[in-house]
């Protein structure tokens, strides 16, 4: 499937001049996107997008150019631009494309991430699924008075990377999902709830789950009031845990560490989390949506243990940060075609504990159950470690869900939160967005309200 992309990437990499290193990263996605509203199709998009990123390194100086086209003339122009750009960079001996030795440090896993049905199912069937999600959302509860949006989306993505030292790799993967945002109303109050179902194959999708979750999340917030400010234990919904892991992953990237932009700089080997916390990035697990046999530089993927029983054991490195730190790449290069390789997580997960979600709730006693957070981008800082986000959820009393709350924030610091993790739920579920979620109990955070 990706053979023509791999050929194109190799062809570009083969144009390296003497003394020059060249790398081409090519991607192509075919996608369908359906949005429905009021029992009719609001928009239907069927499209293919493609692009190339060309990286040139001469004497340790890197230049880069990208183009949202695979047209030969455009690709050649990008190569010219990349060469020109390289002249201005500061020489850096660690700069350079991946060597075959770095790429093959471990054996790449064989992963089947491609579901043919995504391309075979008719557009009409995809439209029907989106309509079904909307109808099902209305049917769940009489208090659902509207569906702000119901949608279906899929993508069939092919990626290839090749460099002038002979390293090359290709990955292909599919992904599809359906979602619903329910509007629930009672008296003058409106609440919203989000539900989705996602999978590699069209057949994996369950519109009833998306509808049920959207409805439940909206209706259970009805009657929410603003509580008094206080400190209390907090239970994270799996979706919120996923977002927390995303922030943590950014703070554990080799680049953030090398450049002194992480609260975890210099903490390797130290106890940075509660003993129940073990965190891996495992893109070799085909259940993870971010799974891939190779990273974005063509290095074989592997399991990277980041925190083991509370102790910080490692960071995520690409070729550059691996060389500079002396630990070598561990296959964690991430990028799109419009950027040079960064480093980061693709499949973060905490090792599950023994308690079910209900048992975690029971263990919490009196707490705040956080269903969703807002302002994650502006409210978390991986450098200072500050963590303060908007939250909506439900008070937990004697281990049971009680009254809903709104207009609150929850705050702590990332280092404090890791040490305060009291329970990791057994309910691990892989979610879109580079991490798995599970119910999590944090023993204390500040809740700001009235």
């Amino acid at each position: 499937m990706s053979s023509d992309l791999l050929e194109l990437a190799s062809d570009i990499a083969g144009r390296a001049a003497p003394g020059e290193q060249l790398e081409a990263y090519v991607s192509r996605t075919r996608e369908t996107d359906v949005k429905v509203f009021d029992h009719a199709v609001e928009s239907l998009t069927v499209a293919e997008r493609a692009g190339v990123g060309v990286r040139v390194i001469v004497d340790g100086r890197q230049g880069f150019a990208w183009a949202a086209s695979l047209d030969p003339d455009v690709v050649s122009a990008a190569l010219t631009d990349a060469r020109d750009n390289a002249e201005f960079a500061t020489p850096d001996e660690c700069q350079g494309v991946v060597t075959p030795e770095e790429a093959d440090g471990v054996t790449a896993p064989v992963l089947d991430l491609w579901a043919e049905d995504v391309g075979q199912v008719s557009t009409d069937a995809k439209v029907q699924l989106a309509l079904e999600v909307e109808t099902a959302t209305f049917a769940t509860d009489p208090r659902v008075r509207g569906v702000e949006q119901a949608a279906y989306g899929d993508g069939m993505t092919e990626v290839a990377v090749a460099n002038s030292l002979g390293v090359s790799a290709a990955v292909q993967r599919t992904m599809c999902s359906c979602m619903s945002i329910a509007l629930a109303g009672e008296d003058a109050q409106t609440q919203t709830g989000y539900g989705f179902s996602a999978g590699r194959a069209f057949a994996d999708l369950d519109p009833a789950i998306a509808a049920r979750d959207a409805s439940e999340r909206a209706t259970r917030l009805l009657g929410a009031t603003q509580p008094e400010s206080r400190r209390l234990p907090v239970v994270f919904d799996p979706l919120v845990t996923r977002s927390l892991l995303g922030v943590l992953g950014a703070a554990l990237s080799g680049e953030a560490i090398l450049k002194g932009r992480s609260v975890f700089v210099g903490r390797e080997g130290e106890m940075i989390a509660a003993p129940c916390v073990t965190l891996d990035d495992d893109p070799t697990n085909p259940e993870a949506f971010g799974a891939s046999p190779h990273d974005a530089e063509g290095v074989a993927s592997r399991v990277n243990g980041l925190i083991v029983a509370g102790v910080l054991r490692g960071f995520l490195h690409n070729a550059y940060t691996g060389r500079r730190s002396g630990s070598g790449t561990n296959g964690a290069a991430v990028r799109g075609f419009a950027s040079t390789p960064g480093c980061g997580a693709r499949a973060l997960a905490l090792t599950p504990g023994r308690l079910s979600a209900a048992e975690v709730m029971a263990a919490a006693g009196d707490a705040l159950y956080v269903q969703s957070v807002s302002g994650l981008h502006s409210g978390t800082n991986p450098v200072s470690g500050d963590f303060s986000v908007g939250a909506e959820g439900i008070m937990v009393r004697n281990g049971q869900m009680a009254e809903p709350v709104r207009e609150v924030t929850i705050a702590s610091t990332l280092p404090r939160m890791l040490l305060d993790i009291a329970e990791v739920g057994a309910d691990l579920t892989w979610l879109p967005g580079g991490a798995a979620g599970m119910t999590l109990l944090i023993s204390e955070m500040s809740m700001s309200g009235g």
Partner: protein
Amino acid sequence: MIEQDVLQRTLHTALRHGGDFAEVFAEDRTSSNARLDDGKIEELVSGRARGAGVRVVRGETTGFAHTADLSEAGLRSAAEAASAAARSDDGGAHVTALERREVAPAHDIRIEPESVAKARKVEMLQRANDAARARGDAISQVSVAYADGRRRILVANSEGLLAEDDQVRTRFFVQCVAVGDTGMQTGMEAPGRSIGFELLDEFEPEEVAHIAADRALAMLRARPAPSGKLPVVLRRGAGGVLFHEACGHGLEADLVGRDASVFRGQVGEQVASPLVTLVDDGTYSREWGTFAIDDEGAPAQRNVLIENGVLTDFMWDYLRARQEGRVSSGNGRRETYQHLPMVRMTNTLLLAGDDDPDDIIGGTAHGLYCAALGGGQVNTATGDFVFGVTEAYLIEDGVITEPVRAAQLIGNGPEALRLVDAVGNDFDTWAGTCGKDGQGVPVSSGQPTLRVAELTVGGTAA
């Protein structure tokens, strides 16, 4: 970009199987970025994206397809793909002959970014880096970026519209990390305008670097932010994002139309303090969210949304306006040709009032002074919004005192609007990227120094 007769034939193809409206949106975008990090010129990046999106509308349904192939064949296949969703037996609408509309540029570009040597751009990075590091030994890391972009767009539709615009934007970023006894803090400053390289004359690299470095250094002394309700004073330019979130999104006609806005049905009503007059102004000269025509070909406008606290109108794109039998307000925007347009803000400005900013601070017994904000987020259906404060100080007995750590502020849009109890006579703007439904577009927000009588501050101190 594309010949007029090719456009005419593409529109005809788009409506051949049905539909009442068709549009071709073509875009040619170039970008140039340079980044200095960790003391090194790390990379220069050039980018190019060119293509066209074709949409076909039948009633409330839109079919959309896009292509990077601007040949007649490429456009024809996009038009055919887009028309599939609008297929009907009754045949499509007639395509009116295209008539080119003369578009006056939004403003002059004094120094075209393409005319500036890369070495000169790199020099600006070095100057900012040197200036930031010279601010003190506590500055441990500096990252500087320069970015310029040019976006040529063309819009042609079946109602005979043909219009083009040429949009240039330039931005300069400095981010500093400072290290002290209490850990690390960051400070950022990132001016952006819809102008060329002259941006760096107006915002000198050293000046931008000093603001970012001083912000990080000030935060080293910060103690935990308070937790709970407090009066909040927003420095001019630092708090416009509050109104962008608190009510801007809720005044977008597409969200109002889905019943996903707390402001639905409130036109003509008092929705804010009488001190509040809010405009969305796509014509505001040289500002980050300014353009000559929007991404549906409608001229940019200055739209009054709230006047002396009374809701006067929503913001409109082509489709929402058509449903209500009115014309677009020039708020139809899209990130790229690969996206469908929707109702978006441009430069959302709360106009200046009469109060002396010093008096606003002096009249606050105990509160929070916000000197710099990060981004925000809103749930338009409930009106609840948040925004991040990245530089803040306590106000004690009318005087700005100690810095406090970054925190999130949370409030409810309609409540916050009513609680604005002082509006200053100064003014400034802030450039940002607004995200909606996965699309980011450049916007600015602006406001004078003002006070909200009560907002919830999400700190950790009791």
